[in-house]
């Protein structure tokens, strides 16, 4: 079936994109390039959302993550890294190679653990024609999940106020 082939190709391409750019995010020394790789990861995950028939979530992902959060991160990098680079020691040398190895071991062990634990549950597979419609999600949001929804608004407001209070420059005295 051609459409199934298309979906499979897209799935593998997006998987490759997400994994490679996530590797760049954690490995690249240049922080600005790491942030741009994070943008690629986010776009790839949005593509996976489209493949999973969650188009609204894909739009939200691109709007909020790529549009807002990534812009914020890039601004923060430009505000700190570039100015600080000439003055700071380039990298605090404290057993970097060994730490890297240990971190890789821990992550690999965690991956094997997660993969083996979720294997049985994930084997259930997808049923065709069971896509969740957006109106269903909206109804869940205002009926069953209305308390978390309101709570998240509260968290959002307090986080924004807190962020402004922390980052606001002190008035010159």
């Amino acid at each position, binding site marked *: 079936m051609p459409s199934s082939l298309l979906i499979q190709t897209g799935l593998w391409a997006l998987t490759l994109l997400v994994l490679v750019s996530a590797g760049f995010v954690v490995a690249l020394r240049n922080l600005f390039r790491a942030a741009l790789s994070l943008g690629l990861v986010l776009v790839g995950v949005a593509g996976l*959302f489209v*493949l999973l028939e969650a188009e609204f979530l894909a739009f939200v992902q691109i709007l909020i993550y790529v549009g807002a959060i990534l812009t914020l991160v890039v601004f923060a990098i430009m505000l700190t*890294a570039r100015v*600080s680079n000439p003055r700071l020691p380039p990298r605090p040398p404290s057993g970097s190679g060994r730490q890297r190895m240990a*971190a890789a071991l821990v992550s690999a062990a965690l991956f094997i653990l997660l993969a083996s634990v979720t294997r049985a549950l994930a084997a259930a597979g*997808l049923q065709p024609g069971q*896509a969740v419609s957006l109106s269903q999600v909206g109804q869940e949001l205002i009926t*069953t999940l209305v308390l978390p929804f309101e709570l998240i608004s509260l968290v959002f407001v307090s986080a924004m106020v*807190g962020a402004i209070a922390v980052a606001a420059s002190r008035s010159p005295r």
Partner: protein
Amino acid sequence: MIPVTHLSLLSSALFCLGVYGILTRRNAIAILLSIELILNAAALNFVAFGRAFGHAQAQAFALFIIALAACEAAVGLAIVIGLYRTARTVWADQVNLLKG
């Protein structure tokens, strides 16, 4: 048909890459980037399993994750900028302002 095992493995890999980034990175902003990876892995897992079992709440929780990620990014970057203003550093292991 998209096999959910594939997406489950992918999100596990994304999560573990984020953990690796948190463990190895020194720059506070880079640690925040790794946290974004972990949050994305969680959202991807929610959507994949919600699609597999036909649950509408999974997408709602993915929305919550995105909203919380926005809060986390705003507060985290505000802290980083405030830290840079106070201590003139963004390296996480050079920060000892609370040390008595």
